[in-house]
């Protein structure tokens, strides 16, 4: 809606300090984001060209307001009057966004190393953690993913990584469309001074 766009625009201006584009450094000015263990990935996602619906790969250096809105649109809540196909498309889009966040080297697959990376980041809020635990959790999760997606595998086959289709399968149990959204109920609760 237009109010939401207005609101986002104001926010954008705040972040970019009244310039036309935002760079990565601008995100550092948000204090609350520091506590977030996956902030690196989040900021990265904003600049990821795949999310910005551009043809190329890699990272953009700066984004303008349109791109900002594009990213935000991934978090739209669903509307009542959507039909099955739209819902499905919506769902896929959101999952694709997530997928890009996991898949940091842009090769279309989440390999074991990338997954380990994700788990480590998730647990990075706790300084006194063994690397081993993070790794074994990731391994276990990967094992499970492989067994869900592929089922029977001989000992010689190697499971390359989680492709997007497998990713979809894993998320089947969770209604992503109902979960991945941000509310814009209270406009007044914007923090004005940073």
């Amino acid at each position, binding site marked *: 809606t237009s109010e939401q766009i207005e609101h986002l625009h104001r926010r954008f201006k705040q972040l970019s300090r009244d310039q036309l584009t935002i760079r990565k450094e601008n995100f550092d000015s948000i204090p609350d*984001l520091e506590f977030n263990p996956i902030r690196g990935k*989040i900021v990265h996602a904003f600049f990821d060209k795949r999310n910005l619906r551009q043809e190329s790969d890699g990272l953009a250096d700066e984004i303008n307001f349109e791109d900002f809105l594009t990213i935000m649109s991934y978090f739209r809540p669903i509307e009542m009057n959507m039909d099955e196909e739209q819902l499905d498309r919506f769902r896929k889009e959101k999952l694709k966004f997530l997928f890009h966040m996991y898949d940091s080297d842009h090769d279309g697959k989440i390999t074991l190393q990338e997954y380990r990376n994700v788990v480590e980041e998730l647990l990075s809020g706790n300084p006194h953690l063994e690397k081993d635990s993070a790794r074994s959790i990731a391994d276990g*999760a990967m094992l499970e993913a*492989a067994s869900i997606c592929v089922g029977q595998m001989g000992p010689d086959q190697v499971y390359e990584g989680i492709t997007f289709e497998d990713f979809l399968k*894993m998320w089947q149990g*969770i209604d992503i469309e109902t979960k991945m959204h*941000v509310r814009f*109920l209270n406009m007044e609760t914007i923090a004005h001074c940073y």
Partner: protein
Amino acid sequence: SVSNIVPESCLLIVVGLLVGGLIKGVGEKPPILKSDIFFLFLLPPIILDAGYFLPLRQFTENLGTILIFAVVGTLWNAFFLGGLMYAVCQLGGPGLNHIGLLANLLFGSIISAVDPVAVLAVFEEIHINELLHILVFGESLLNDAVTVVLYRLFEEFANFEQVTIIDIILGFLSFFVVSLGGVFVGVIYGLIAAFTSRFTSHIRVIEPLFVFVYSYMAYLSAELFHLSGIMALIASGVVMRPYVEANISHKSHTTIKYFLKMWSSVSETLIFIFLGVSTVAGHHYWNWTFVISTLLFCLIARVLGVLVLTWFINKFRIVKLTPKDQFIIAYGGLRGAIAFSLGYLLDYKHFSMRDMFLTAIITVIFFTVFVQGMTIRPLVDLLAVKKKQETKRSINEEIHTQFLDHLLTGIEDICGHYGHHHWKDKLNRFNKKYVKKCLIAGERSKEPQLIAFYHKMEMKQAIELVESGGIGKIPSAVSTVSIQNINPKTLPVERILPALSKDKEEEIRKILRNNLQKTRQRLRSYNRHTLVADPYEEAWNQMLLRRQKARQLEQKMNNYLTVPAHKLDSPTMSRARIGSDPLAYEPKADSENLPIITIDPASPQSPESVDLMNEEPKGCGGLPPSPEEDEEGLVMRVKEPSSPGTDDVFTPGTGDSPSNQRMLRCLSDPGPRPEPEEGEPFIPKGQ
């Protein structure tokens, strides 16, 4: 079958009716469900069970909706019903004219509350999706505060000559006092319980007691001050649970779970039976007009209330409630024993029409429980309402959910919008920083949720494996994916290194589990042996059996897949074989019946050796490490159909009899076994 059609609660009421009829027929006076017994003894276990196992995530996500339904919905029901009944009474002729407005309002408030016991009893069986379940159930729990306030208010007002505005305002305020006070009391007791559990590491046996006692005290304290006992109970359960579970041993956790389920089951059964008996026993005053109109207006009020409220709520919800959902919510508004007990509490002196009220209440209860309870299941199927998804929580889901949480929090921060996730995250951080340190003992306070979840899952899988004896129901999907499939660079030898971390072992266990599906383990026979703790006798029996089998063995030798380990393999080789070739465990295609596992029981690394053996908690303690036993590969066979009733025999081929003997003796000897470190997985370290 009958139980598919008729919900359990209905059957229980029928049983109660029969029992009551029987007692009356004999001439005795049947016992009536006294309100004391109900409120003090029968109700708390059910509520505690509900509160302790409340799915907190869904509950908080829908808290706004639930509150609106509980508070506004119940108020609406009460006033609408009371008002209409008053009108009916005025018009209803001489029998009803004397019932005043207040009495009717009181009646309305008693009958309007959705009853958690009935809802639980019926909804448990129909397995609808979690959202609806938590909505109706949450409403039934939270409307207790409203019911308590209204009940007491109207009861007192009925004695006043006049009701002033001040009284009404005070009544309104008292609602907040009652509900928030109840929650406050519950939270206090919950924190005390959590704090107590921090120090119980040496007296594990009484840990469950704290949970029960503190919760009950919360309930009693709240009731003492006329606050809402149910809300106190729920608050205490919810607050204490995360901390207590982190502190107590696994066995205590199981104990708590089973005791709560047991008590709540017993309570529920008794409540319904008593309802039936009370119906037969009570004095009834049947007034057609009153009863029928009560029933009718109850239904109408409920439907109208749900419709209007949903329309209002949907403006604020992201996930809207569809008409189907609304129908289920309205239809699930069951009344139950709480209404009956509240009615029973009414004083004869002030309310001469108490019997009529009671009759009407019982009729409504019967109607909702029987008619609505029975028909809701076919209706759910007919309307194709989404059912509960029976997926187990997997580690993947947990990772993704956490990831998503952080992501959404981050996005909210970027937008500068202090939303739902932001506050939740702040609360979590506060929790982690301050509260957990106080309330959770030692190491666990620093454990992140993901790790805790992972450990819990591993433990659960290990226990499932033990309980199922290793056959068939392996929790994870049947697949031959092993660690090599996903990470071929991992050197297999790495797994056998002495300095195995606990997590690596859990990996290995998982792999073994996957590969051992088809073998039957000898665990079952342990149960009998451990009860009869005479090692020599058992060993003797074993010997005899073995001699018998030895002859059969000759023939079957050829079918064994692996060479009898003790002769040809040195310990290191057999270990290496385990390590490098997981397929050794897979039955080869050409063998017909006897897959064999060769497992090296003792390893020089640690005294606690036999892993699969030890999975059975009553199994043998550590075998003393001895060089001779290294030679014995333990060969386990699938039980031959030709020898039913005999135990599996250890057949190490033509093994040495003394060490064989010792092993058998040791394995059948329950032996003093050191208690596994509480909180650790059952399976001891080492391989």
